[in-house]
Every structure is written in C-alpha cells, then in structure tokens.
C-alpha cells in the first residue's frame, strides 16, 4: 500500500511537470527539442528514481516479465511498469497515444512494414528513437536488417525469429503409424490422407481468428514463390509482378486442395485459435500450421509438453525446392519524443545483451537473434535450422507497402474457405489493396 501511495505521489508530480512540458512543446512545435531530462545515471542514489512505461501485447508478457525483474537488479533507480493487452486493443490505444503525441517510453513494434504498428510506419512518422549507437546492433545478421532497420538505422529491437510450420501431436502420429515427417508436398498430402483414414482430423484450422487464416499461405509461398524468384518482393514493389501473376496462385490452390480433400476440421471459419490449440493438444487433430512462438500455448494445453513437435511444411515436390518462412518476432522500440529517451534506450541496450536475447528467445521458442554458448534452441524447431541460412524468407507482410494487404488476405481466405469467392477474385482484391 505504501508503495502504491508513493508511486502515486511521484507520478502526480511527474504529470504536472509533463503538462507544462506539453504546453511548451506545443509552443515550439517542430523544433528539435533538447533532451528534457538529462540522462539519469541509475547509480547516483535512490532519489533519482525514473519512471518508465512499457505497453506491449499479451504474447510479450512472459519474456518481458523475467527481463524486467532482472533489470530491476541492474538498475534499481529505474521503475519500469509494463502493461499488456490483446493485440487489437494495444494497436488502438497505442495509435491514439502516438497520435496525441504522448507515447509510452517503450512500446511494442512489429518488424518491417505492412501493419499500422510496424517499424516502417512508426519510424516513418519520426516517432521511434534511433538505436544504432548500441553495440548489439552491430551484430544483427544481414537477413534481419530490413525488419529492424530503416535507411540503415536500427529503429527497433527483437530477440530473434520464429518459423511457421506444422505443430504436430507425436502420439497421434505414432498411433496412425507415421514414421517421419513429410519432405515433399506429395508426401504431405499422403500423410494427411493416412491420418484421415486413421480417424483423426489431419489439420486443425482456427480460421475464425483472423491472423490464423494467413499461416497456411505463408507456409507455402516461400516454396511456390521465393524459391523460384528470391527477388519477388522487389519486383512486386516495382510493379513488375503481382499476386495474381505469381506462385501465390499456386499456394492458394494448394490451400484449397487441403480444404476440398477434407483435411481440415469441420467449419474452420467458425473455429477459433483457442479451439485449434485444444484440438491438437488433446489429439482430436494431428497438427496445425502455426508460428513456433505459440508452441508454449500448445504445450500448456497438452497432457505432457513433450507430446508436441514441429516440422517445416513442404510446399514443393522436390525437397531441395522447399523454402520456409522465418520472421523476426514482435519486438519493441523507444519513443523518439518520450520524456526519458535515454533511460528507455538504456533498457533496450540491456535487452540487446546476449543473456537477455537468450532468455527472451527461450521463453517463446524462438531462434535467438545472435547466438553464443548459452543460447538454446527449442528441439521442436531444430528441423528448421538447415533452412535458415539460405532457404528462408521473412513473413510476407513485412515487405508489403501498406497496412491494407494483410487484412484483405485474412478476409479472402475466409471467403475462399466459405466458397464465397474464387482464387481469381481473391488475388485481385489483394493486388488492389497492394496498389493503394
């Protein structure tokens, strides 16, 4: 209680000061404001307490909580309060705060471009602090740079990458007599057929939850598009190709083939992500095409966490033409116009330490951004490692030029599954959104 009270006092003073600042800021509009708070060195005594605020999405709670506790020990003078909410709500409240010029010191940022909370959109509006001076940014692997950097400057932090593949229930596979995961599309279809004959749903699909709709296309497109044309993104941006003229068509056809052959659960459009998890975890379905970052959720629901593993979805008929999607996981940035930019950046610098990267990556089964002897890789994603060097592409939306393509993709997949649209219509809508 006393703690709460003290927090209120200091916060009250803080905001009064802040109110004054906001007025001053309005008066001097665009001029580059000098650092309003001199960087407080954490060690100079308890009096120099700094309050920092972080707003994140629910998935970030587990990795952040551990690191926040660790940071408290490193810098007792900094009080970092974090709040988490479901993605939609965070998106709304953060956009409002950013719009009103009062962003939290630290907040969630999505890598690359293609969403309203993505690095390119926010940094493009001048609202993210440049992190390039921090030492961890020097070791960012080349493949990750487009997701974290703009014009050569690092604008956000992420602990590593996750992959999209099939999360499967080992017990179900064993019972159906499946020996090894498939390595070609034909084998994958045969596997589904076998599972269906064994009386289980081969693939659980929770397409009522919008973001789940995209995962199967994302799993296939690396093989049907990028394996043939690694420069597809650049050509599409230049207007030389389109969704309709590319392997996207083939990926959609494969998606629909799975649906038409009855490999999905009944009524995928009415099934949610949560139900999808429970179907696989309890063995009513054999697998689900998902991001590795949700492995912990599947494990929580299963009778034993060891029941679950993962394999790459083979989107091509020769094994060496199979590529996989590997995307930078959602991370965070520091508000450029925050009240304690230097302290906020210092926290990110702490997250950039190898131990922090390892800790974050481990919690969400990600492949750490950079690795050392202390890095661990979830055994479930080991089968993806051979691909990550030269046969992996970032999640497609990270290179899309605006935030409209992705929601259109969600909607057209639902329409395709409902039989309310053709592949031609679906790809046309996506191309139209891309042009906007």
């Amino acid at each position, binding site marked *: 209680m006393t703690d*709460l009270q003290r*927090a209120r006092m200091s*916060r*009250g003073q803080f*905001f*009064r000061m*802040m*109110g004054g600042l*906001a*007025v001053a800021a309005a008066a001097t509009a665009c001029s580059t404001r000098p650092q309003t708070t001199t960087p407080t060195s954490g060690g100079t005594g308890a009096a120099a307490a700094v309050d920092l*605020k*972080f*707003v994140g*999405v*629910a998935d970030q*709670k*587990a990795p952040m909580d551990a690191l926040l506790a660790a940071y408290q020990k490193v810098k007792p003078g900094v009080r970092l*309060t*974090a*709040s*988490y*909410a*479901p993605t939609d*709500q965070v998106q*709304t*409240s953060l956009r*409002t*705060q950013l*719009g*009103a*010029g*009062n962003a*939290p010191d630290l907040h969630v940022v999505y890598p690359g471009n293609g969403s309203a909370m993505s690095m390119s959109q926010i940094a493009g509006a001048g609202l993210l602090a440049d992190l390039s001076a921090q030492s961890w940014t020097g070791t960012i692997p080349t493949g990750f740079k487009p997701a974290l950097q703009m014009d050569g400057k690092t604008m956000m932090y992420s602990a590593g990458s996750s992959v999209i593949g099939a999360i499967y229930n080992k017990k179900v596979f064993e019972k159906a007599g499946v020996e090894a995961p498939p390595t070609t599309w034909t084998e994958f279809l045969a596997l589904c057929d076998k599972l269906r004959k064994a009386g289980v749903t081969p693939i659980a699909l929770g397409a009522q939850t919008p973001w789940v709709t995209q995962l199967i296309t994302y799993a296939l497109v690396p093989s049907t598009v990028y394996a043939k044309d690694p420069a597809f993104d650049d050509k599409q941006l230049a207007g030389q190709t389109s969704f309709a003229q590319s392997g996207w068509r083939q990926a959609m056809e494969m998606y629909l083939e799975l649906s038409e052959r009855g490999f999905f659960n009944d009524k995928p459009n009415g099934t949610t*992500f*949560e139900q999808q*998890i*429970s179907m696989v*975890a*309890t063995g009513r379905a054999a697998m689900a095409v998902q991001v590795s970052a949700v492995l912990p*959720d599947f494990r*929580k*629901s299963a009778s034993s966490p060891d029941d679950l593993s993962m394999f790459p979805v083979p989107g091509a008929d020769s094994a060496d033409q199979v590529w996989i999607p590997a995307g930078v996981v959602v991370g965070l940035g520091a508000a450029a116009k925050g009240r304690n930019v230097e302290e906020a950046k210092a926290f990110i610098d702490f997250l950039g330490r190898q131990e922090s990267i390892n800790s974050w990556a481990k919690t969400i089964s990600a492949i750490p951004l950079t690795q050392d002897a202390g890095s661990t890789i979830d055994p479930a994603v080991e089968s993806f490692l051979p691909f990550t060097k030269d046969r992996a592409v970032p999640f497609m939306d990270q290179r899309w030029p605006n935030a409209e393509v992705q929601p259109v993709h969600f909607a057209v997949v639902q329409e395709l599954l409902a039989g309310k649209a053709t592949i031609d219509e679906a790809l046309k809508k996506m191309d139209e959104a891309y042009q906007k």
Partner: protein
Amino acid sequence: MRRTFLLEVVMIAAAVAFMFPVYALVTLSLKDPAQLSQTPLALPNPPTGDNFAKAWSAAALAPSLVNSTVITVVSLVALIGLGSFAAYFLARAHTRLGYGLYVLFLLGIVLPFQLGMIPLYRLVTDLGLIGTHAGMILFYTGVQLPFTVFLYTGFIRALPREYASAAQIDGASHLTAFTRVVFPLLRPITGTVLILNAVFIWNDFFTPLLYLGGSGFETVPVSVFSFVGQYVSDYGLVFAGLVMGALPIVLVFLVLQRYVIKGFSSGLKG
C-alpha cells in the same frame, strides 16, 4: 387461475432457456480441462475451484477492484449531482435556451466516441490527468451526462410542479427547493441512473486501457482482459476470470434491482 398457471410455466421455461449461456459460463468455470473437453454440457463432477484460485492471483484482481470502485463511485456521485441539477433547469425552463440546451445534451447520445478520441486524449494529457483516477472520473462524468440528463429531465417533467412551487412560496430559494423537496422525489429515477451508469462505467474497457494502461491503476476489465489474452486456450480459467470480473456489478444490480424498474416506470408517465 389455470391460465395464470400455464403462463407461469411458459415464462419459467423461457427463463431457463434464457439462462443457458450463464449455465455454460458457470459450469465451465468449475471444470478441470479433462471435463471441459469430454463433457462440455454436463454439470461439473466434481466441481473444482482451481480455476478461480488461479485466475484471482494471475489477474491481480484485488487492486483493480479498488480502482474500479473508486472511479465508479465518484463518477456516479458527480453524474447524479450535475445531471439532476441540470435537468431541473432543462425540465422547468420553457425558454428557447432551455430547449436548445436539452437538444445539445441529447446530441451527446448520438455522437460516435471515435470522433473526439484523439483531441480528448490530447486534452487529458495537457491537464496532466493521464494515469490518474481523476482523469477517468472527468471522462465518465462527461460522456454519461447526456443520458443522465435525458433520464432526469423526463422524470422531472412528469413531477407535479406544486411541490417545489409551494416551497418557494414559503420563501425558499430554487436551490433549497431543489435539494430539500425535488431531489428526494427523484429517488426512483436516481436508482435507474445509478445502475445504468454503474454498468457502463464498471464494464468500460477501452477508455481505462487507453488512459490507465501501465499506470498501476488498471480497472477490473483491463486486468481481466489482459489475463484472458494470456490464457486464451484455457476456457475454464478464462471463464473463471470473466465470472469474477462481472460478479461485483451483478451483486450491485441484485441489491438495486427494485429501483431500476420503478425508476423507469415513473420516468415514463409523462
């Protein structure tokens, strides 16, 4: 007699059907994961309180309950005070100003909240009220005034004028006449105002997320939904969280339910 009995049976049957979602909510929150997937519709056997214990600690509901209560109670006091005062004027002033102001207040019922969201956020920031109870109280008082004024005005219009007039003839000012005579007569509609505004304020999710997120002063819905967001796949746990989040307001309703119906009925006579 027989017809009343038949009607009673029909109505009870309707109520039972009506309660089905509530039955699902409560029974699921009392089941362990195995029962959840195997016997989703049956009664919990045996019932388990684990979900509630887990949800209570994981969602950190205790401090949120205090925040929600403070914000709701103070906002209600402000709404009832300001709203009834304003309505007394609007109901009694048969002038163009009175009518114009009444319409101006009603406009507030129609406006979508998205319209003023960003300018309001700027304003609250400049006032230094982000992350404070005061900011939320100001907000709720403002947005709920139109509906409050609407309810009070309708009720006061239907009140016989003689009461207040008699008091005034005795030499009392409008202020005394209002506080001593009129306001006590407003009790039924005050009950309605109380419950409907309490429901709105207690349940609001987006505004406290926006204004209080990360401040340590989160309200119950914010805590519950951040909790729900983390445990999405565990229905028993999520439903236990929902039950606990809704329970306080349901209890308040059960205590006040007589007034809700009474207040409406007297408000409509005019």
